[in-house]
């Protein structure tokens, strides 16, 4: 899956990745690749500016901390980030339900 297809969803994907707890940057990239079955193919360097933009927006917070004996910047969801993620999930489920209804291949309703 190429980066152009992901561009509109990157923020939501990053928020969802941080839903389980705080992670450092490369762990976020690994989690994205693992949870997508390796289908997400985007320049990893674009993840960091996106994370910092989300921090500017108040949706994530970050700090330098020691992980595995190394200093790393770790990110976590803020309360506003949790609310934004919940809204993204609702919008995504509504969208996929609507698209599945058309593309899913089920029978068309009988004509009146």
């Amino acid at each position: 899956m190429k980066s152009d297809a992901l561009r509109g969803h990157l923020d939501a994907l990053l928020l969802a990745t941080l839903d389980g707890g705080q992670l450092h940057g490369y762990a976020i990239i690994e989690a994205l690749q693992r949870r997508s079955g390796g289908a997400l193919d985007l320049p990893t360097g674009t993840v960091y500016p996106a994370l910092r933009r989300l921090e500017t927006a108040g949706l994530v917070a970050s700090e330098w901390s020691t992980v595995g004996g190394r200093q790393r910047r770790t990110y976590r969801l803020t309360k506003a980030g949790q609310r934004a993620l919940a809204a993204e999930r609702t919008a995504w489920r509504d969208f996929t339900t609507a698209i599945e209804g058309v593309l899913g291949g089920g029978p068309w309703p009988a004509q009146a």
Partner: protein
Amino acid sequence: MAGAGVIDDYVTALDRRLRGPDPVKDDLLAEARDSLHDAAAAHRDDGLTEEDAQRRAVAEFGPVTAIAREYQGLLGLAHGARTLRSVMLVIPLAYVMWELNRRFWIGAWQDFDAPPPDWYLVVARFNDTSAWLVAGVAVLALLVGRRLARTAVSTLTLARLAGAVAVVAVGVSLLGNVAILAATAYLDATRLLTSPPVAAATVLSFVIALRLAVLARRCVVFSSV
């Protein structure tokens, strides 16, 4: 080891393309370097040589030109937000300090032999209002920028917007300062020198305004790629 500096070369190339506040830039580059070394370590564990692991990590990170553009947006935005915060705090503070100083050392302008004409009061009112107006605009811009950061608007666009607001805000503030100074000199130049402490406060206000103008100009420089 041949190629062991692939990551260092990449980070150096990225560094050369970026302009902005050093602490923010150092922080961004440190994070990028860490991530690249993490990726290279993962590839080494998969059996690649050190050089191949670093080359693959760099390739996955993205072309320097494209990545630098996104990082430059962050640097421009960080500087723009800093400048707007300075405008929000420093301009009203400088105005209040100057006014308190003037009231303590000089008193009301009407206490002079000849009360100032109406046009002078208009200029004075503009100067008084501009300090609070630009501070309000800076607060609004920071709030709107925070909102826009949650949308698909790029950091580079946000940085340019912050820079434009900062330039206009500082320009209006400087205009207010220059206008009241020129009007006072035209009306009665001796009033400018009535009180050395007030004259010093006036000079300080101009130094502050010029410093803010430099910061505003850098907003434009840092948000261009």
